[in-house]
């Protein structure tokens, strides 16, 4: 008997390969480049992500869906859409970092290669069609992030955040592996496609192993996505890590992991809809309430944004819950609203972090809402205006991307019959206005503490990031047709 080697389809994983190879080149090049020219590595990394975006566009137009590596990878428009969003987030984060690293004297070192490795993990995550691929992708992503979180080697808080992230991260991976093995034990496969086929019309859906495995896998996801009550690491890690890293991990990880979650539950486990939707329903409610409520009293902008990102994840989860594949219309609306929300979230959240980065000083990160943001509108009117737009968007005020996202998500929830989710969502987003608007109020009405000092020059790369995020946030709010149609077009989770 022959064991046939699985066919190699390198073209299918071109985005992943480009980023991974780029990371290796950057790692090697780092050895030969004099320290003064290290920022060039950042631009190299940026170029790599742009080339990878090009590859995604090329694949999008080509023959999709495409299964590769013994069905462990599924390259479809859904994955490509998510990959493009991730890569955009990564490109913007890289631009954000170039001057930030120098300013904060963090040193370049392995920063950009690690970032690229992390991105390669995210890309793999978006295409993962097997619990094993999924696990490997998540590990690639997380290992890079653990180190990046601690990349401010001189700062105790950064070290602390890295250790906490690592410990609790490994802990949660335990659940994931355990869950995966239970699912394998119950069904004999880890492949998403095979799982779906195995569960269809079988008596397996009542299997205790399968359900326990599902619960454990969901716990692993919940940890990675910082869903309450598995979110405890988030505030510390987000506030401890260097701001540019926080920005990157708050968008990239969430986008890729949500994609993987959606692919797993709707692509592999539609037969268990009743089970996972109930579990995620509970998580969504707890997450929305807890994230938004806890953010109210935060005075540190990074911690506030950390809790805010928890709340935002709750809104995305609402649409995931509504993804009932037995109702195609509802399912389409729900899944594409997940995609749109992730896209909008990437821009608005990165934009908010970009403002935080722009305000940071070498000796003081300027994170205190009362002290450092008060009166910002008078010192730096453009930055304050940008921040106001991002805050309003995160708060879901009309004419911004955030509003469109929330609207679609809640509409999907109501269409799927989950009106409690929509009601809790609307109410918590009203509560959320309290802290998003507080930033705006502070900036426009507060007394400036740093009035005497000259406003910081915003470096060009950072200005580019701000401009891109601003334009996207407003454009998606006023003329959402293009991204919405793209999200609709991406709705083919491969499950042949």
């Amino acid at each position, binding site marked *: 008997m022959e*064991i046939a080697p699985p066919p190699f389809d390198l073209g299918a994983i071109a985005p992943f390969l480009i980023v991974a190879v780029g990371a290796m080149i950057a790692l090697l090049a780092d050895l030969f480049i004099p320290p003064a020219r290290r920022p060039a590595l950042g631009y190299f990394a940026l170029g790599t992500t742009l080339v990878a975006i090009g590859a995604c566009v090329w694949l999008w137009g080509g023959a999709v869906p495409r299964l590769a590596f013994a069905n462990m990878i599924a390259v479809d428009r859904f994955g490509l859409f998510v990959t493009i969003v991730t890569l955009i987030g990564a490109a913007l984060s890289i631009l954000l970092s170039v001057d930030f690293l120098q300013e904060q004297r963090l040193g370049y070192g392995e920063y950009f290669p690690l970032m690229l490795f992390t991105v390669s993990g995210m890309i793999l995550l978006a295409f993962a069609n097997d619990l094993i691929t999924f696990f490997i992708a998540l590990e690639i992503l997380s290992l890079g992030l653990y180190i990046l979180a601690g990349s401010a080697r*001189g700062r*105790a*808080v950064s070290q*602390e955040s890295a250790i*906490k992230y690592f*410990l609790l991260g490994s*802990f*949660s991976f335990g659940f994931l592996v355990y869950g995966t093995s*239970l699912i394998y*034990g*119950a*069904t*004999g*496969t880890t492949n998403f496609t095979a799982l779906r086929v195995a569960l269809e019309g079988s008596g*397996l859906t*009542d299997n*205790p192993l399968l*359900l*326990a495995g*599902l*619960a*454990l896998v*969901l*716990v692993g996801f919940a*940890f990675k996505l910082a869903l309450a*009550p*598995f979110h*405890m690491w988030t505030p510390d890690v987000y506030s401890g890590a260097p701001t540019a890293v926080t920005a990157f991990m708050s968008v990239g990880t969430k986008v890729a992991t949500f994609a993987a979650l959606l692919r797993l539950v709707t692509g592999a486990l539609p037969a268990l809809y009743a*089970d996972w939707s109930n*579990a995620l329903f509970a998580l969504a409610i707890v997450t929305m309430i*807890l994230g938004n*409520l*806890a*953010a*109210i*009293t935060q005075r540190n902008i990074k911690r506030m944004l950390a809790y805010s990102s928890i709340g935002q994840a709750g809104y995305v989860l609402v649409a995931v819950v509504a993804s009932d594949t037995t109702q195609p219309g509802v399912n389409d609306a729900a899944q594409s609203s997940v995609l749109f929300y992730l896209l909008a979230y990437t821009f608005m959240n990165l934009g908010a972090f970009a403002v935080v980065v722009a305000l940071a000083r070498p000796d003081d990160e300027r994170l205190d809402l009362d002290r450092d943001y008060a009166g910002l509108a008078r010192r730096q009117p453009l930055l304050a205006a940008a921040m106001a737009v991002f805050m309003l968007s995160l708060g879901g005020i*009309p*004419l911004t991307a955030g*509003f469109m996202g929330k*609207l679609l998500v809640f*509409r999907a929830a*109501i*269409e799927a019959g989950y*009106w409690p989710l929509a*009601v809790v969502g*609307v109410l918590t*987003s*009203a*509560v959320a*206005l*309290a802290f998003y*608007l507080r930033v705006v109020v502070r900036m*426009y*009405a507060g007394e400036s503490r740093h009035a005497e000092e000259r406003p910081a020059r915003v470096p060009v790369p950072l200005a580019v990031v701000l401009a891109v995020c601003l334009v996207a946030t407003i454009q998606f709010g006023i*003329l*959402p*047709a293009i991204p*919405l*149609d793209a999200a609709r077009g991406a709705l083919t989770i491969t499950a042949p």
Partner: protein
Amino acid sequence: MTVLLPLLLALGAAPVVLVAGVLGARPAAWASIVMAALACGATLWGRWAGGGALDVAWAPSWGLRLTFALDGLAVLYALLATGIGVAVLLYSARYLPLHLEHQGRPARDAIRFYALIVLFMGAMVGLVMAQDLLLIFVFWDLTAIASYYLIGYDRHKAESRAAALMALLVTGISAVLLLIGLLLLQALYGTFALPAIVERATPGPAQTLAAGLIAAGALVKSAQVPAHFWLPRAMAAPTPVSAYLHSAAMVAAGVFLLGRIYPLLRLSPFLLDLLLVVGLLSMIFGSVLALTRDVLKQILAYSTIAQYGYVVVMLSLGTSAGVVGAAFYVIAHALAKSALFLTAGTVTEVTGEDRLSRLGGQWRGLPVLAAASGVAAAGLGALPLTIGFFKDELFFKAALERGWPFAALATLGAALTLAYVWHFWSGIFLGPLRGEAGRPPLPLVAPIVALGLLVAVGGVAVAPAADLAEAAGRVAFADLQPVEPAYHLDARPENLLALATYALAATIIAARPRWFRLAAATARLGERVGPERWYAAGLVRLNRSSRALLALEVRDLRSRIATVLVPTAVLVAIGLWATPTEGAFRVGRITVTDLPTVLGLLLAAVGALVATVPRRPLTLILALSSVGYSLAAVFAFLGAPDVALVAVLIETILTLLFLGVLALFPAELLKDQAVGPAPRPSLRWRNVGVGLGAGAFAFAVGWATLSQPAAQESVAVQHIRLTPAAHAKDVVTAILADFRGLDTMGEITVIAIALLGIAALLGRRERPMASDERRATSDERASGEEKRRREGR
């Protein structure tokens, strides 16, 4: 085109003003006036040209459309927003420079003001023309944001910042209600388009709920009881803002929305009755409180609450006369009220006083102003020969249709109105002279005169206003009975009621000392237990719960692990609960040959238990490794010597690593750890509980796993079968060297490179770290959170 022109002019005004602002504050002021006038003219032209509609795709794949129409309702409110906007902007062009000068602020600050006012105007015009609930919501929020900045315009004053925030939060609540309502309607009828919803709507509980939510949002915006408290607070805004927002625009948006969704409201008599109660309460409370106020703008604020109470009452009567009357009432009120607000502003500007008790006899110095505002006051008080007379005529007519009790209440309300209007006007202009008055500049009087003239002209030639109101009513009732307001010199009931009103008002004014204390007591009671208290308490509670939540998020690692373990256990428990237990948990037999296995497992259990007790790291490590070794022994007994070997190997390496790291640790740190205070007893029990819970579910899962045969032939069986073909003696060798040969080689390479790297690193470990360490300690000192944690321990 008829739709697009007013819309574009109104929405484009803000950018135009900002561009003009580059030249300075005065060009910005003129730009805002011209844009408002143009928008007003375009609306008039649109009405003359017969209205029209606009419908373009917004996000077609999601069924979102931009639909606007210039129907009767839209014309009425758009004319008010732009027309009164012109008057207010003319007034502001002079008022604001003075206002800024008093406060020592730069003149350029005014540009923002003009831009915000016209932004508000644009949002208002967009709101009234929108035919799509989603668009209504968008513009609704835009008005809220613009009003936030306008009310908080004097941003150095804490009072106005608080007022702005309150207005924003309260109207934010209205937006939430609106959003839930419109999502519900969308779910019910599959569209956001209002005409289609109206067509498809059928009475039912869900429809009532949706319409009720939207109506509640509208009432909040119109400052109706019990959500009225934000309006008097919002008087902290500069006077032109109050004149605009609280007569013609922001509060009017609420009753506009009621008019817009009227066909939906009408389906439910229950909702209409509810509205009636709210309207009556607002009418009575607003009027009584207005009578007790001393600050000029406060009187007008409570008056606004009362007057919109009338409008709500008229709408809730459910008759076409009521709807038309409401529309007419809005016109008359907006004209008169904005004039009175501007009067208050001018009087305060020239005398420096803003209280009735310090004003009086001003007619001597300000005769023109006294006359103009007297006409406006008469209009609000519904005296004959003003437009206001007809608003009450229609009001009485509509109330009479419902029955005498309503007519009586209407009379009482109207009398109260007349009384406080007299209180306001006579307090300023009549009586002994109090307060030094300078000469007011012309632009601070002219708009008031213009508005007063309109009120008077409307009292003679009522047809244009009546036409507007009728056209607005047609949106709700296609088969409208024409109402023709006119003077009738006969003893018809409306006239009798009007006479009764005047008599009652005179009595109220004359008897002021008798009832004043009662009214003041009511006001105080309202302040003490009223909705404003609920609002404050709500905010406090929100903050408190947020703090409590953070306190709950304890910061030591143990609680974090608990927060992961407990929900996991719950999730798994639910999973197990949901499955049939029959056959899922099997118990085999234990024979003598199993004794070593059982002993090994017992040993592991004992080791795990022991590991929870010691506080010295060394003992802990040893206890933990004993668990590992006993499990390795169990594997050996179960006939898996290779697994046992690997387990022993790993266990040994880990223990050695642990010990090695421990040896490198500073001794004091370890001692601290060993002798530190014991955890609180409650935490200890929590830890025990969490451990037991998590263990129990892990046990249940393990049991279930073992009770079940493998689903498929595993790949291992296949590998064992293929081992001879690979010329290997055992399967492990075959896998390592053959089936996974390439993997093995890759792994060896990786390990070799890693070893080389480590060797290189170890070779150059002497690196200057001093500066980094110094920075680390200073950071630690700076980190408050770090400190708190140490104290907490």
